[in-house]
């Protein structure tokens, strides 16, 4: 028992009639009340996070379809759903797309985010105001961003192609050509993710003591040199957190792709989460959908472990 706990219980027993010391230890009213503070949240987490994870595992081993909702029967089929997933001709394309979408988004968000964070670190009039206004794309509902970008990227009359047209560039079929749709979706997702990267990286930059730069300047480390030898090494823990968290958030993106392309054209923007959604809620093959989402969970889990390690390092340093 810690010092504070001792004093708290002492204060409590001063107020109430002191019950026998032993019984008070575990099941006193005080301790029960303490547990009641966390009970609703614990129950909620179990029901709305724990149960779905378990249910997805069992579902993925069952033939779980629309019929199940009428008859209540979901026969066990072993790994048949996983076989269906692995042998489906959309599996490898969606794996590749998930990887390209994630890597492309993260690279773009991070590089632009870091550049902007470094820029805003120089204090100038309005810098704080401008930086906080930059958060807007992140706060908008994703489906709103999708709708807006769809109008901007429209092939015939969208403003982007009109703008490119003034340089003599032919209209690009951003969302209707399988060759460029994934690139367009990545570009939009970069735009959505920049504010988050700026915010976290800016926070990290603020924590680097000015003395380091002053000492570096004496040794001739300014500008790019200072960035390479002072900023980057000191920012490393924050960078790893941003990157891993970025992967975990990007890998499950659904809204943006559904809003922009619905997984099309010609399945060019199918990702694991789109597959999972479409198998479950378009084809009503919940077993197959669950198998897809379990693969998604597995990948997220790997990065979650990396995140926790990176985060621990960030806290330690």
């Amino acid at each position: 028992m810690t010092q504070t706990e001792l004093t708290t219980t002492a204060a409590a027993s001063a107020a109430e009639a002191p019950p026998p010391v032993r019984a008070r230890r575990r099941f006193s009213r005080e301790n029960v009340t303490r547990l009641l503070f966390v009970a609703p949240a614990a129950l909620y987490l179990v029901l709305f996070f724990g149960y779905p994870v378990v249910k997805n595992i069992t579902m993925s081993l069952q033939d779980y379809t629309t019929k199940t909702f009428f008859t209540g029967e979901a026969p066990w089929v072993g790994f048949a759903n996983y076989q269906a997933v692995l042998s489906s001709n959309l599996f490898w394309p969606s794996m590749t797309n998930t990887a390209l979408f994630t890597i492309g988004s993260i690279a773009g968000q991070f590089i632009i985010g870091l550049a902007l964070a470094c820029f805003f670190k120089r204090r100038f009039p309005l810098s704080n105001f401008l930086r906080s206004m930059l958060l807007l794309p992140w706060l908008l509902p994703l489906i709103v961003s999708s709708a807006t970008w769809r109008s901007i990227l429209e092939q015939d009359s969208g403003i982007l192609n009109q703008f490119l047209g003034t340089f003599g560039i032919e209209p690009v079929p951003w969302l209707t050509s399988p060759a460029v749709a994934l690139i367009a979706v990545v570009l939009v997702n970069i735009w959505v993710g920049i504010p988050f990267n700026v915010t976290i990286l800016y926070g990290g930059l603020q924590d680097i003591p000015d003395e380091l730069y002053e000492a570096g300047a004496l040794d001739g480390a300014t500008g790019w040199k200072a960035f390479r030898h002072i900023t980057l090494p000191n920012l490393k823990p924050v960078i790893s957190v941003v990157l891993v968290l970025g992967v975990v958030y990007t890998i499950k993106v659904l809204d943006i792709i559904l809003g922009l392309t619905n997984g099309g054209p010609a399945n060019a923007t199918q990702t694991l989460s789109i597959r999972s959604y479409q198998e479950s809620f378009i084809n009503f093959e919940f077993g197959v959908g669950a198998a897809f989402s379990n693969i998604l969970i597995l990948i997220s889990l790997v990065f979650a472990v990396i995140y926790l390690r990176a985060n621990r390092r960030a806290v330690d340093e």
Partner: protein
Amino acid sequence: MTTVDAAVVPVPAQRNAGKERTRSAGYTALGILFLAVMLFPVYWMVNASLQPSGNTLTASFFPLNPSFDGYARAIAEQGPNLVTSLIVSLGTVVFSLLVAAPAAYALAQFRFRWVNIALLAILISQMIPGIVIANALYAAYNDLGLLNSIPGLILADATHAIPFVILIMRAFMIGIPTSIVEAARVDGAGLVRAFVSIVLPISRNSLITAGLFAFLFSWSDFLFALTLTTTDEVRPVTLGIYQYLGTQVSNWSAVMATAVLSSLPAIALLILAQKYVAAGATGGAVK
């Protein structure tokens, strides 16, 4: 450079200050340029919503002859959905704070032996893809009769909010000095009384931050709106926009007007509650 400055600042320093000032003005200009590029889509959304011709996208760069037809149509078609979104979001705020605030306090101050394990579980829960939750909830809600219901959506949307609220409020509450609560306990207040009448008022700012974000998360929710509603009785506005986008878009000004209306909470919060938004943006992620 004003005369007042010239009188106060010695000459060599004055030249430096002048240089410094042009330089920082340059930075400000550059910053405004960056912001303008980043926020151009938002401008374009507003601009497109005010264009008179609904059917094509041919929009002039400035809404010189603003037309509110898009808004009239948006409100007529999406008005009820906006109200649904509002009710669901407010419900999510209340529910999330009720569940998460006491837990945050307990995890910050009660020194349970398993605090770190609980925090780990909360962090991991934030990483679980929404589609996993939707898959399982659809089946469960179907049995429980919670599909197409506002309580069903509130409970589901709270998955976006509760882990975040616990983490961000705990980060704040860990700094509350124990002596304040102890003083009340000596005066005879129980744990619950001390929490309600002392801890919560002190934590006002973090409650507001948490509440604002819970609102935004729920208001922005698309996945649960898409999967847990099947009729148009209960239909959040995010799903309304998606359905506009579903087939060939026939009326862009109405779509964009709905988009603008759906952006109002985010825009209003960013302007009116900047302090709280900034606190939430940094607090939730790395702590």
